[in-house]
């Protein structure tokens, strides 16, 4: 009778909405806590370099003289360590993933 049990589940599911969604036609909804990618509000940044020092994969590069902050999205492991350590709270974790790229840099 166990066969009928799964048949019951299958029949029930047939009347319900699909468990999958038609990505990319239907966009995926991220939660508020999702770690997607790191963004910088450069107006507030003092280029202290703490994020660069904290980054475990050395994805962030800060140049204080030239007031330049860059991140390599492919190196970033989205650990949120830089966001936690930022003294001016100008780094933030966006909940959407970084977009696809065709070349490494």
């Amino acid at each position, binding site marked *: *009778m*166990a*066969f009928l049990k*799964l048949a019951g*589940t299958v029949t029930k599911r047939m009347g319900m909405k699909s468990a999958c969604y038609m990505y990319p036609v239907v966009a995926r909804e991220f*939660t508020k806590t999702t770690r997607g990618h790191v963004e910088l509000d450069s107006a507030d940044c003092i280029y202290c370099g703490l994020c660069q020092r904290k980054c475990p994969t050395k994805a962030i590069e800060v140049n204080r003289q030239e007031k330049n902050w860059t991140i390599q999205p492919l190196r970033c492991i*989205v650990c949120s360590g830089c966001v936690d350590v930022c003294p001016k709270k100008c780094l933030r974790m966006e909940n959407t993933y970084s977009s696809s790229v065709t070349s490494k840099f």
Partner: protein
Amino acid sequence: MSKRTIIPFGPQHPVLPEPIHLDLVLEDEKVVQAIPRIGYVHRGLEKLVEKQEYANMVYVAERICGICSFIHAQTCSQAIEDLLPIEVPERALYLRTIWAEMSRTHSHLLWLGLMADAFGFEALFMHCWRLREKILDMVEDTAGGRVIFGSCKVGGVRVDIEDAKLKDIVIQYNDLEKEIKEITDVFVEDYSVKHRLVDVGVMSKEDAHVLGAVGPTMRGSGVAKDMRTLGYAAYKYLKFEPVVETAGDCYARTKVRIREVFQSIDLIRQAVAQIPGGPIAVKVTGNPTGSSFQCVEQARGDVAYYLKANGTKNLERFRVRTPTFANIPPLLKMLGGCELADVPVIVLSIDPCISCTER
């Protein structure tokens, strides 16, 4: 004696995308011996201790495995906390327990799906993974990542779960429990499933003990050993008994994992009911010294971490023994005397994670 043939099995094979190679020595259709070979995906993660600071090793440990990711991070953190030494706040211990049990439920549902796929029950496979997806959504909602939780750190946890969200997790698990029961009943009762699992890959209690099996592989053979009973994290405050089945075949190992899913849901309920308030992490200062050995129960069995420190910001030695490594000798024992057609099911019954094993 009939003629012997050697059939190479893997590293690319139809069972699972894990690169293990077995030389199967056959007499007709019967396996008489299996000779393993691993080493296809060695990444040398343990060597990274020389370059990464000890706090960053938690990130590295979390990436040893994509399924037990949180428990690897938890074990690594526990070992470093033992070396420092620091006391972790109780709320953090409870949160670690909740995430570890969520990790166990999704791992077991993943395995049940793979097992269904291995014996050719595609619909069952889809339903197991449909339910697993709901758990992954909960993980993302609480920890921030779906596979790599990223919520554990030395000294506690990095994010808190609000009490309302904790209650919501329990409500979701209550609904999920009914759906999981519906699916797991098929594994337990279905004639064709039983036909593929009962009396396949039998391992006796003595063999399980002597060959050093761990986790559900061992508990399926009747050895009641579960590292959670050591009382790390918040397990010392929770009530549970190791899940044991005595038959020692693939069916028994499946039943152990099914019962463990429900046990994990119960542990989450208990932890949410008892979780205290307070801080979620303590400040970590100084460098670790000495050595620490930690055993933690993962979904596949117990993982052992050995860490040695010399008072600098880098650890001196970092050694991980993952459950699959311990389960390979029992696997070879199970394969001796089985039919060739049963090899995929038996290999899968230990829930192999070769990337874990080789690191």
